[in-house]
């Protein structure tokens, strides 16, 4: 007979993360609602309030990254940690290894979020979606992530339960993969404090970015939440998971397949075709492990569906798992080239991610919060009626969000692709924009309902907390872990791995590395993947500065720079994009959404506009292009260009292989001013007076440069 050991669970850390989840959730959703409304009321965009040398921008381009970062890393991130700290201690029958590490993890993560909330509106961004935070914050994330992992593994090592429950594997896979993803994608060359360039360029940067981007979805929004589902859903329903065996199989299949799926974000782009095909195959196969998890979750409620009628927590969870099922059915479909040709760059993608985000992550988080808070405060939920109200208004919100966005996306694509009988494009781009406005308005309403629900939850949980008292240290007892493990004959192979967290960590690491590495390496190594186009030259210093402004303002959140090889696109935008055109693009700015038109060839052929057109358009887009929803950037007319940074930028670019001559940084600003004066004179001819060293001049220079390189020459592909 073993003796029982007494110990206590740390509930305080769970409470802290729960509070953070609620607060950042509401904040992130409110920012989301705001940016949604900016698309209906573009005049609400505020850009370029001066603060010293920098500017604060409350415009779509700067706030959209704030929204995505807030809901992903602040809301879902804290939700993950809340669930981890609650379930890990109980599954392992031990307190967290170190309260101090838990605390550092908590406060470190909140500081990172605050840093993001400050730097992003200031325009300090790497220009890579979902990885916008600048290098010092990237380092902070790494440190805090390691602390979190250390604490988790130390806890696993001192556990009193030999077997590692399925949820814990998901946690481990999450920790390891996110660490690798973050490290690989955040290879940056710092130019100054809070400014850096991605080490990768063009097509390689795009591949690394979407390898990261997709796996962020996989390993930040999916695997940890599957782990949480495997803990909290059986708990809430008080019955075991449908099939434990299925959970093992779908876990391994999921982590093994997910890592290969990234290229489906780059279909029909300049990414080598073989990489696209690889991405498609694995994305499609992913439906099996994904649905394995979905089915396992839903069937956990077999014979208990009457409980779903009564229990609001289960309602949230059922909608969450259903949304997961829908999103993971849709994902593989969207990865098919024929579907992607329609969906890509449209609001269809926005609908897709919000079914996952609002449905899967949102609803599951709400369900867990309603379950955990009363548990650790030892009191019943303040109001079931309010929770029910939250459930229905959130569900309605998702519908009001997703349906118009699906419609809008399909409509958008159809209009982009429509030709008249005479063979001309039927619609001007602006017509597709104005057509979207009612849909954007209904979507905002859906978002409003969803946020309202979250605020009601905040109140409900606040009242619950006010009436209860936190059990900061919850008593528990369990037998000590037996020292010797007897090997049973015919034991399940998997069990041996489960008993060894460290080997398990290594194994998981290897599994995810295979996928990532095989996909990444060839593009790095095989030169033929990136045809060298002799006429493609590095940006001039002025264009480089303009490009940095483009990135600072988040132009890539609405404009793509990637012409796909379709007639509807080559007719509208010109020659389709070639990999070799992007070799000096640190970072790539292909974008993933066309709220505005593609800009890859903005400076060429029939797309080319005069300098004065650009000047007036940036000053007041609606005046030049009636119906446009672009924010105005009139502050650039006066804002002085930071030419002091030019030498450092040129040096950084050269260090990364951009062929600027040695010592060019010393004369770069002279060239910059020459080019600026030329543009200034062009503007003067149209009687527009502006100083040469203003930001508007730089952004015009960049616009006029876009796509012009291959116009000069026929493409000279390096055939090796």
């Amino acid at each position, binding site marked *: 007979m073993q003796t029982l050991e007494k110990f206590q669970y740390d509930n305080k850390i769970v409470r802290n993360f729960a509070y953070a989840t609620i607060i950042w959730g509401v904040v992130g959703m409110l920012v989301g609602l705001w940016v949604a409304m900016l698309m209906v009321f573009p005049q609400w965009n505020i850009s370029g309030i001066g603060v010293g040398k920098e500017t604060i921008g409350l415009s779509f381009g700067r706030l959209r990254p704030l929204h995505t970062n807030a809901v992903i890393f602040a809301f879902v991130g804290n939700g993950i940690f809340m669930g981890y700290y609650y379930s890990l201690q109980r599954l392992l029958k031990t307190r967290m290894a170190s309260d101090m590490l838990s605390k550092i993890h908590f406060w470190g993560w909140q500081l990172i979020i605050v840093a993001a909330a400050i730097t992003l509106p200031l325009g300090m961004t790497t220009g890579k979606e979902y990885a916008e935070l600048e290098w010092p914050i990237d380092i902070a994330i790494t440190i805090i992530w390691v602390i979190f992992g250390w604490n988790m593994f130390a806890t696993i090592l001192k556990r009193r339960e030999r077997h590692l429950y399925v949820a814990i594997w998901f946690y481990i896979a999450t920790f390891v993969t996110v660490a690798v993803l973050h490290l690989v994608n955040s290879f940056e060359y710092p130019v100054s404090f809070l400014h850096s360039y991605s080490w990768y360029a063009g097509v390689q940067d795009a591949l690394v970015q979407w390898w990261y981007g997709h796996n962020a979805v996989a390993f930040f929004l999916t695997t940890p939440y599957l782990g949480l589902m495997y803990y909290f859903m059986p708990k809430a329903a008080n019955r075991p998971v449908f099939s434990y065996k299925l959970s093992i199989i779908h876990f391994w299949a999921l982590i093994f397949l997910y890592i290969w799926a990234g290229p489906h974000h780059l279909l029909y782009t300049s990414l080598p075709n073989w990489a696209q095909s690889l991405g498609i195959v694995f994305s499609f196969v992913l439906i099996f492990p994904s649905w394995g998890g979905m089915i396992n979750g839903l069937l956990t409620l077999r014979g208990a569906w009457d409980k779903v009628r009564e229990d609001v927590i289960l309602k949230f969870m059922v909608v969450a798992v259903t949304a997961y099922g829908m999103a993971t059915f849709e994902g593989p479909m969207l990865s098919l080239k024929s579907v992607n040709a329609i969906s890509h760059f449209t609001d269809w993608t926005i609908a897709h991610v919000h079914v996952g985000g609002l449905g899967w992550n949102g609803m599951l988080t709400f369900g867990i919060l309603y379950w955990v808070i009363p548990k650790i405060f030892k009191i019943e939920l303040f109001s079931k009626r309010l929770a029910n109200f939250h459930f229905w208004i959130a569900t309605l919100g998702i519908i009001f969000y997703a349906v118009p966005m699906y419609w809008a996306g399909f409509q958008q694509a159809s209009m982009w692709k429509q030709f008249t009988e005479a063979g001309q494009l039927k619609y001007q781009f602006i017509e597709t924009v104005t057509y979207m406005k009612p849909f954007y308005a209904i979507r905002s309403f859906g978002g409003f309902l969803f946020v309202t629900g979250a605020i009601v939850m905040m109140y409900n949980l606040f009242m619950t907390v006010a009436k209860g008292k936190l059990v900061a240290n919850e008593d528990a007892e369990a037998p000590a872990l037996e020292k010797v493990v007897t090997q049973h004959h015919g034991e399940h192979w998997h069990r041996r791995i489960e008993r060894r967290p460290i080997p398990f960590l290594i194994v998981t690491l290897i599994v995810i590395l295979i996928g990532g590495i095989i996909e990444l390496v060839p593009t*790095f190594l095989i030169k033929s993947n990136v045809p060298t186009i002799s006429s493609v030259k590095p940006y001039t210093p002025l264009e480089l500065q303009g490009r940095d402004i483009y990135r600072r303002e988040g132009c890539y959140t609405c404009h793509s720079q990637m012409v796909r090889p379709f007639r509807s696109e080559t007719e509208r935008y010109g020659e389709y994009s070639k990999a070799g055109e992007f070799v000096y693009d640190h970072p790539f700015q292909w974008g993933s959404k066309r709220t505005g038109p593609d800009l890859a060839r903005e400076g060429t052929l029939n797309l080319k506009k005069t300098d004065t057109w650009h000047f007036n358009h940036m000053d007041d887009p609606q005046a030049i292009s009636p119906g446009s929803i672009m924010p105005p950037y009139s502050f650039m007319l006066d804002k002085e260009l930071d030419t002091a940074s030019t030498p450092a930028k040129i040096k950084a670019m050269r260090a990364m292989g951009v062929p600027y001559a040695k010592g060019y940084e010393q004369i770069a600003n002279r060239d910059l001013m020459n080019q600026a004066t030329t543009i200034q004179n062009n503007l003067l001819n149209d009687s527009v007076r502006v100083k040469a060293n203003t930001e508007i001049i730089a952004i015009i220079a960049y616009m006029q440069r876009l796509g012009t390189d291959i116009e000069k020459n026929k493409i000279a592909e390096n055939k090796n």
Partner: protein
Amino acid sequence: MSVLILLIGFSILIAGGFLLAFIWSVKRGQYDDDYTPSVRMLFDDKPVGEEDPSFKPKQK
């Protein structure tokens, strides 16, 4: 950049080794058991003899 290539080469070797081990263990056909953990996680053992008087669930 060539350091990266070397590192990656080694990683693929290790990864391949793992894959073989994985296939090998699958072929051993040891797919059974796997039920009790799903039930055990449902029980959060309360310390013996402890009743919290402040916690009164509402009557249905």
